[in-house]
């Protein structure tokens, strides 16, 4: 059986498709085409929520995106959505919805006490109290936090997926109302690439709420249907419904959120279809046809359930075929609301009275209402309303001349519906976001778009053009104009825009604050922002206390800061402030419109860039083999590098010790493919390196390698690595893994912008080669079996390279070492990396070849006192601080050189790199431990520096560490102390940084 308040006929709902849903635990029936709001109204449910602060009963005030009251929690558990607007929730079978911010129930909410205590809770009350005793704030606060908030956040990871896409078009039309449709049609016909975005699930805009509008002599919706059909026929036009254009950014870049599955029952959602899609759109031209939003009147106790916008009443009757009430009072200041009165009347709803602020109501609709015999009370105001969970009656009284006060006790009129209209506000949000100015229109008493700041135009009600005929024409012309701007001239004979009757809601009497029977704030609440419970009295209080700027008023009272961002309250607030100052509205100014127009899901911004797609995982050609070998991996930038290779039952410490010893005793092998490689060619290549590196390169022989240090212009160490001379004009630079891209960028920058005269070309060849590093006394023996290169110390000395084959693969072999042992780095074409690795592993078995990871490499290089950029350096360290004066050429300029000779660079209290040996050899200093000369019994203590690297070294047979210490080199042999978090203090002695094979025979041998 149909719901009690469903009209027997009419509306755009599909009465053949009943939909069952739950609200606050009760099961109800609606129809396909309903919103949650219309279905609730059809079932006589008007109390749907509680307000933010006073927990006053709240109903449904609108039928669209502007809804500030009816915020609903939809769904359960991980698929629960808070704060959805009942007016925009498409009814879907099995929908589970509930009221928010009330306990134990929306019918009986204990926090209603806030309402009775409201005298104590004016705007900003919390700034004035909760300060004693100081320590109690956190206690007060936790109570406040529990009381605040509206809905509940979902519980558990969101199972749904989200999508985003870039898009491009010639003309974006926002809004598919009358002007949007004619705009899309004329731009589309001209051949421009058009995207038409509509937040609703259907095209037509306000026409969907009109009972008897006509276009071209036919019913408006039939015309809309024709328009839709034609647009869908144009392959250059794309229609996006359920798509909210939420943000207008620089350079005509637009953000839109499309809802793809929320309107489908859970079991009918295609698995492969994302829930929401973010459109990141670049439009050559933007055509805003976003319409207008009706403005409520601010009168005493104007927040009760059953008090709604007049236009919303029309929507519920005409579009959804429901009765918003049985007995209605219309309260208006303009002619437009009479249309609502007539529609309600036609729908069989008793219109008890039309209370009109205008002294002698007139206008086309007013006349029709008179003819219909409706009771019109001119120069009257609603001065109070009654009813707790639903409005029961209103008190009306005549107004004084100036409209400042009312006469007499007033007449009580029973009703369960109050349809309110205070005029219309064009939806200028997007225009304003695009930095277009907005100006105040005195006739319509609203803000309208001024000159656009970007390639955009506005049309229809959005531009302050309220007549249907005018909207159609303006859209039609704007469509032609914008298409032409993008190079698409209208073809064939000029078409006339569709014709329709032209009327707007004038005449009107503008009144921002309707007087009550008591002085403002003395009982009765004139709500401006119904969601945040901000009243006109609150605004006056803010102004009285000196918060004069409209931004101060907004922030102090929180008006317009709810989930609706003031769509129905901001202009009223501005009007009331202007009234208080007695100044024109433009002098008050407007608060900024910020994105989003309506709230946008977090998930849609992430799209598919979550989980393992959040960030690329870069893998070397040998990665799969390392995984197979059970390697533990470390993230280095985006790369996964083997950290260590544990064998059965080993912990990290044991594995690393084993790897480190193997490299000294026999043979270790590591995947060094991630090191950056830059191919440098051209006749000025050597000179280029001279300017980039701190040391000199001209004399380097072909076939030789050299270690280089690179500084930023601020003199701080930026990167290091070995560069080899492959030919007279040909070098191969290696960089650290993390800095490969930044270094290439650095080189290109100087080459192109500072030294264009140098004939040099740079090419990244990082991934052209797989690099396998052999380290240990048996490195030569193994490699000898695999290569045709003469490996004898004489033929192939340390710091040189040779070309030949390895395991039959063309290879470039470098005799360089980061471990301080006999070592070769073999570069082969990347696709052969895995094969070579396997060959090496097999051939190396006899030497107990041991793959080692980054951790072992760290220990090995630390034994030798080699630095790691980013560990021994942190952007504040110079070569001198590292004791690497030997690598800084005195003879030439290079990037960063001058900075090394600034006043503070030579100070001897700078932090210098030193070695540390703990007094207890087994004790390993924690990396990051801070060192002091004197341990105080409690902080603060004067720190000298920190431990940059620290390991147990099985080869040295004790712990070793490096540290940056103020004046460190002058402290050799002296004792330092590391007071740790657990209270223990580690004592250590300052030493040099080389702990193993100080003469370096092993490397050269």
């Amino acid at each position, binding site marked *: 059986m149909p719901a009690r308040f469903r009209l027997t006929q009419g509306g755009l709902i599909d009465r053949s498709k009943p939909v069952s849903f739950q609200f606050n635990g009760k099961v109800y029936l609606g129809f396909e085409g309903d919103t949650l709001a219309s279905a609730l109204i059809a079932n006589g449910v008007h109390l749907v929520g509680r307000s933010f602060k006073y927990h006053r009963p709240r109903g449904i005030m609108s039928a669209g995106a502007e809804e500030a009251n009816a915020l609903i929690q939809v769904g359960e558990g991980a698929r629960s959505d808070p704060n959805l607007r009942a007016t925009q929730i498409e009814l879907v079978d099995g929908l589970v919805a509930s009221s928010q911010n009330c306990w134990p129930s929306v019918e009986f909410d204990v926090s209603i006490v806030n309402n009775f205590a409201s005298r104590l809770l004016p705007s900003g009350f919390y700034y004035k109290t909760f300060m004693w005793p100081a320590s109690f704030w956190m206690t007060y606060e936790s109570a406040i936090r529990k009381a605040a908030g509206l809905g509940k956040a979902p519980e558990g990871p969101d199972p749904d997926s989200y999508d985003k896409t870039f898009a491009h078009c010639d003309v974006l039309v926002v809004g598919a109302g009358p002007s949007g449709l004619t705009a899309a049609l004329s731009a589309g016909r001209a051949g421009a690439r058009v995207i038409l975005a509509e937040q609703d699930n259907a095209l037509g805009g306000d026409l969907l709420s009109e009972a008897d509008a006509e276009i071209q002599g036919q019913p408006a919706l039939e015309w809309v249907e024709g328009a839709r059909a034609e647009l869908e026929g144009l392959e250059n036009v794309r229609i996006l419904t359920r798509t909210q254009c939420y943000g207008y950014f620089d350079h005509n*870049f637009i953000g839109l959120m499309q809802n793809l599955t929320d309107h489908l029952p859970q079991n009918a959602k295609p698995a492969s279809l994302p829930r929401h899609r973010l459109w990141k759109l670049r439009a050559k031209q933007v055509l805003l046809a976003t319409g207008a939003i009706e403005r409520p009147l601010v009168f005493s106790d104007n927040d009760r359930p059953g008090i709604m916008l007049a236009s919303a009443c029309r929507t519920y009757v005409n579009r959804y075929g429901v009765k918003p009430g049985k007995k209605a009072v219309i309260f208006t200041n303009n002619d437009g609301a009479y249309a609502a009165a007539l529609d309600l009347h036609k729908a069989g709803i008793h219109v008890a009275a039309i209370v009109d602020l205008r002294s002698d109501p007139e206008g086309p609709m007013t006349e029709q209402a008179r003819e219909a015999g409706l009771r019109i009370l001119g120069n009257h105001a609603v001065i109070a309303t009654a009813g707790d969970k639903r409005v029961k009656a209103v008190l009306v009284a005549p107004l004084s001349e100036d409209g400042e006060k009312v006469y007499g006790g007033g007449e009580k009129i029973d009703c369960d519906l109050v349809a309110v209209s205070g005029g219309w506000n064009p939806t200028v949000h997007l225009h304003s976001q695009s930095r277009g100015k907005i100006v105040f229109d005195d006739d319509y008493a609203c803000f309208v778009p001024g000159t656009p700041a970007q390639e955009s135009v506005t049309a229809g009600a959005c531009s302050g053009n309220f007549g249907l005929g005018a909207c159609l024409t303006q859209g039609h012309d704007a469509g032609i104009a914008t298409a032409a701007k993008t190079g698409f001239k209208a073809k064939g004979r000029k078409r006339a825009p569709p014709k329709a009757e032209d009327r707007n809601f004038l005449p009107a009497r503008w009144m921002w604050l309707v007087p009550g029977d008591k002085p403002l704030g003395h009982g009765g609440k004139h709500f401006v922002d119904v969601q945040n419970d901000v009243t006109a009295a609150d605004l006056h209080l803010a102004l009285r206390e000196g918060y004069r700027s409209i931004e101060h008023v907004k922030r102090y009272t929180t008006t317009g800061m709810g989930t609706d961002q003031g769509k129905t309250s901001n202009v009223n607030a501005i009007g009331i402030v202007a009234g208080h100052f007695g100044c024109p509205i433009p002098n008050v100014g407007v608060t900024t419109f910020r994105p989003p127009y309506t709230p946008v899901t977090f998930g849609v911004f992430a799209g598919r860039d979550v989980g393992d797609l959040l960030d690329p995982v870069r893998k070397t050609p040998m990665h799969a083999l390392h995984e197979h070998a059970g390697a533990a991996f470390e993230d280095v930038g985006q790369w996964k590098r083997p950290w260590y290779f544990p064998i059965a039952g080993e912990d990290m410490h044991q594995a690393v010790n084993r790897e480190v010893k193997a490299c000294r005793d026999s043979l270790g092998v590591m995947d060094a493919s991630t090191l950056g490689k830059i191919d440098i060619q051209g006749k000025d290549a050597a000179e280029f390196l001279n300017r980039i590196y701190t040391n000199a390169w001209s004399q380097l022989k072909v076939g030789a390698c050299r270690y280089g240090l690179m500084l930023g*212009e601020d003199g701080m160490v930026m990167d290091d690595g070995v560069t080899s001379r492959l030919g007279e004009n040909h070098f191969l630079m290696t960089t650290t893994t993390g800095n490969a891209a930044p270094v290439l960028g650095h080189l290109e920058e100087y080459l192109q912008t500072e030294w264009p005269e140098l004939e040099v070309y740079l090419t990244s060849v990082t991934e052209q080669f797989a690099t396998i590093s052999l380290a240990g006394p048996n490195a030569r023996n193994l490699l000898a079996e695999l290569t045709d290169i003469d490996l004898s110390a004489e033929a192939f000395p340390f710091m040189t390279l040779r070309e030949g084959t390895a395991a039959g693969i063309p290879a470039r072999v470098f005799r360089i070492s980061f471990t301080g042992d006999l070592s070769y780095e073999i570069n082969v074409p990347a696709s052969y990396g895995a094969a070579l690795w396997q060959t090496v592993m097999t051939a190396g078995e006899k030497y107990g070849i041991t793959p080692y990871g980054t951790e072992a490499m760290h220990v090995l290089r630390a034994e030798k006192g080699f630095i790691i950029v980013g560990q021994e350096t942190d952007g504040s360290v110079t070569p001198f601080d590292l004791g690497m004066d030997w690598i800084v050429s005195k003879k030439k*300029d290079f990037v960063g050189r001058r900075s090394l000779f600034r006043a503070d660079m030579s100070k001897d209290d700078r932090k210098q790199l030193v070695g540390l040996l703990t007094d207890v050899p087994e004790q390993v200093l924690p990396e990051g431990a801070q060192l002091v000369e004197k341990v105080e019994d409690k902080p603060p203590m004067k720190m000298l520096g920190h431990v940059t690297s620290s390991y147990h070294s099985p080869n040295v047979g004790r712990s070793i560490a490096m540290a940056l210490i103020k004046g460190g080199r002058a402290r050799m042999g002296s004792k330092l102390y590391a007071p740790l978090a657990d209270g223990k203090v580690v004592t250590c002695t300052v030493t040099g940084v080389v702990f193993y094979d100080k003469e370096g025979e092993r490397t050269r041998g």
Partner: protein
Amino acid sequence: MLEINCPYCGPRFETEFSYGGEAHIERPKDSENLTDEQWGDYVFMNSNTKGVFLERWVHTSGCRRWFNVARDTVSYQILAVYETGAKPPKLDLRNDV
């Protein structure tokens, strides 16, 4: 999301580019003879203009070329794009603050 007209590849989105800060700051040839102040000015100081600003960009994800852009740092409107080393085009360089 700005649209920048790479002089070599054509109009592309901001995310393909990297920013290089103020343009036309030449690296001193004779840094030897500069005072700490002069050198510090070169390395750190910046006119950070509000209004039309001449700045450097590089098409990182494209042709990897550096070039210069004249951009209003308030409206973000791009007034001109020109090659590295070229003189800035004639523009009204008043900082309309």
